[in-house]
């Protein structure tokens, strides 16, 4: 029987010109914002082809963010799990402690150089995107307001203080579940009101077109560096990994490391969602893992998988990690999943905490609770793979911000 040959997909051709990844994506926003989205797309496409702009961004990535971030061989974790060789892409070592700076700096520079606007609004869940945005705004001298759910402000208190130190106004959001989704609603409301002067610096590969593609592009530096570091650098294994693992909230760190590897079809690309207290009770943020609640829908400007009730109201999510605690997922992830190019699994709060502890104990690295979900999945994955196989984990952020949560959880660990 002959194998079915399919045409290789040109992943760079997506999204289409209206911002769709297959049936996902698009622009579901109030009319007031439609011109701003067109303007943003135009500015971004111009910047992408502007050698001077790209050179300035690359310069700041090198001299300010500290890129490239290294790839670290996790020798003791590899030995402990007894399977595949584990490498870590160290986004935790980027300035501000997470991958979020890649996109925040890119968009802030875009606004400063290419758009006639003077003010930034952003949302934040874990506070990492808020800190990255506040940092970029301070660097470039831009007025900045960050919206954050009050539940998240309580569990990520150090990042609230950090943003304020950086000159950003942090506005607490009391509506809904008081977490990331509600912060995005308020940021969009601010943007609708002040659209003539204000750029919305969205922090994940979410929202209306052109955000999912633009944020992916700014984050793809992670995968571009990793390609070289794994395949060619003397410090790496000298070949591409067999699997790449990344946590998926909105999905920006995952799409950033996945995207440059999409054409290398032998590399498995695995996204890890937040399983919270388990799928069955509904207290999670695993959009792909729960066929009952996770349905095709529209939330905050984009069509994708959305956790919702049978009446189309958006479900309240739960994760120990504020950055993964979101009811929808970036549209490109949904599309890549349909193509069979990426796969998704989940880690519960408990498994993520186990991953968190392992990385602290064995590697001397305190990961963000978001990234700990990717590490948690290794506990299952690595032992199933042969010792000459290689896994690359995107360690998307560091865990200083989570110490309060972890200390609270200590007794349960």
């Amino acid at each position, binding site marked *: 029987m002959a194998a079915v040959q399919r045409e290789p997909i040109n992943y760079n051709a997506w999204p289409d010109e209206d911002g769709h990844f297959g049936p996902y994506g698009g622009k579901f926003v109030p009319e007031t914002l439609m011109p701003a989205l067109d303007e943003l797309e135009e500015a971004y496409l111009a910047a992408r082809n502007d050698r001077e702009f790209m050179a300035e961004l690359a310069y700041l990535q090198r001299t300010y963010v500290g890129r490239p971030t290294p790839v670290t061989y996790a020798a003791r974790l590899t030995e402990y799990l007894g399977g595949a060789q584990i490498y870590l892409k160290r986004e935790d070592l980027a300035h501000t402690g997470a991958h979020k700076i890649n996109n925040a700096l890119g968009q802030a520079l875009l606004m400063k150089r290419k758009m006639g606007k003077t003010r930034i609004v952003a949302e934040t869940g874990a506070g990492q995107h808020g800190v990255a945005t506040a940092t970029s705004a301070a660097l470039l001298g831009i007025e900045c307001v960050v919206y954050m759910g009050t539940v998240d402000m309580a569990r990520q208190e150090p990042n609230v203080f950090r943003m304020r130190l950086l000159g950003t106004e942090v506005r607490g959001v009391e509506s*809904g579940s008081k977490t990331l989704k509600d912060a995005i609603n308020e940021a969009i409301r601010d943007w609708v009101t002040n659209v003539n002067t204000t750029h919305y610096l969205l922090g994940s590969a979410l929202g209306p077109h052109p955000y999912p593609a633009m944020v992916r592009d700014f984050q793809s530096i992670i995968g571009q560096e990793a390609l070289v570091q794994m395949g060619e650098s003397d410090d790496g294994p000298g070949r591409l990994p067999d699997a790449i693992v990344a946590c998926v909230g909105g999905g920006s760190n995952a799409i950033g490391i996945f995207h440059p590897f999409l054409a290398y079809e032998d590399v498995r690309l695995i996204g890890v969602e937040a399983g919270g207290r388990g799928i069955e009770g509904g207290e999670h943020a695993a959009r792909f893992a729960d066929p009952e609640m996770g349905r095709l829908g529209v939330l905050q400007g984009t069509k994708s998988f959305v956790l919702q009730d049978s009446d189309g109201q958006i479900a309240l999510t739960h994760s120990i990690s504020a950055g993964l605690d979101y009811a929808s997922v970036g549209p490109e992830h949904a599309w890549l999943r349909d193509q069979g190019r990426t796969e998704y699994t989940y880690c519960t709060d408990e498994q993520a905490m186990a991953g968190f502890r392992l990385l602290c104990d064995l590697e001397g690295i305190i990961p963000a609770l978001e990234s700990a979900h990717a590490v948690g999945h290794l506990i299952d994955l690595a032992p199933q793979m042969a010792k000459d196989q290689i896994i690359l984990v995107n360690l998307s952020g560091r865990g200083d911000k989570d110490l309060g949560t972890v200390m609270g959880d200590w007794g349960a660990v």
Partner: protein
Amino acid sequence: MTGVERIRAAFAQAGQERRAAFMPYHAMGYPTRAETLEIIAGLAADGADLFEIGIPHSDPLADGPTVQGATYTAITQGTTVADCLTMVRELRDAGVTAPFCAMGYYNPIFRYGVERFVADAAAAGIDGLIVPDLPPEEAGELEPACRQAGLATIYLLAPTSTEARIRQVVQHATGFIYLVSITGTTGVRTELPPDLADFVQRVRRHTDLPLAVGFGIGARAQAAAVAGIADGVVVGSALVKAGGESVDAALLLGRELIKGVQEARG
């Protein structure tokens, strides 16, 4: 008559009386189901020309605090999309004939099933749809369903809309066009923008459809001012807030607003 025709007739009737049409918004299920029915029936009896029937959503990103709070209350009291249609049917059975435009975000409609929603809405007595997070680009499923059922697809335009955008949107619109008075979310403002009349004129050059202005209008004088420059006046948050106090408060404000609209008789 189709929904589109009933909406056009309501604007035509107001036009014959040389005044703008008055269109109150109500958040269905707020503060309770019974009060919702009393408020809408009362406003209709007092002379409201059309209604916006607010279908609650958990994440109303075009709405300010008043409507957010009201729709949140409605949802927590268990108001579903199907309940909203049932209330519409009850209002029709009670003799309310003014056109009803359902105002709801896309996800609840999408989850209900677009075709099924349009069919059920038309059967219940809805005449048109306003979906604030669904620009014409994304309405490829909704528009044909509405055409088939005779429902109007009512689009919004905003002060930020460019000439090209206005030309594009008016081609898709039926019934009337909803002009957002301000860049912002719903909710009462003390002042409306000075260039509102220019905005209405800018759209007027591209279409003969009735132009209704909403967002920010809450007082009699504002209603009069807007009635002087547009074909319709939409009032939401102010009435919702009054309705939260009592049915009488909502109806009292409604009568004030109707007087405002009539004062601008051209």
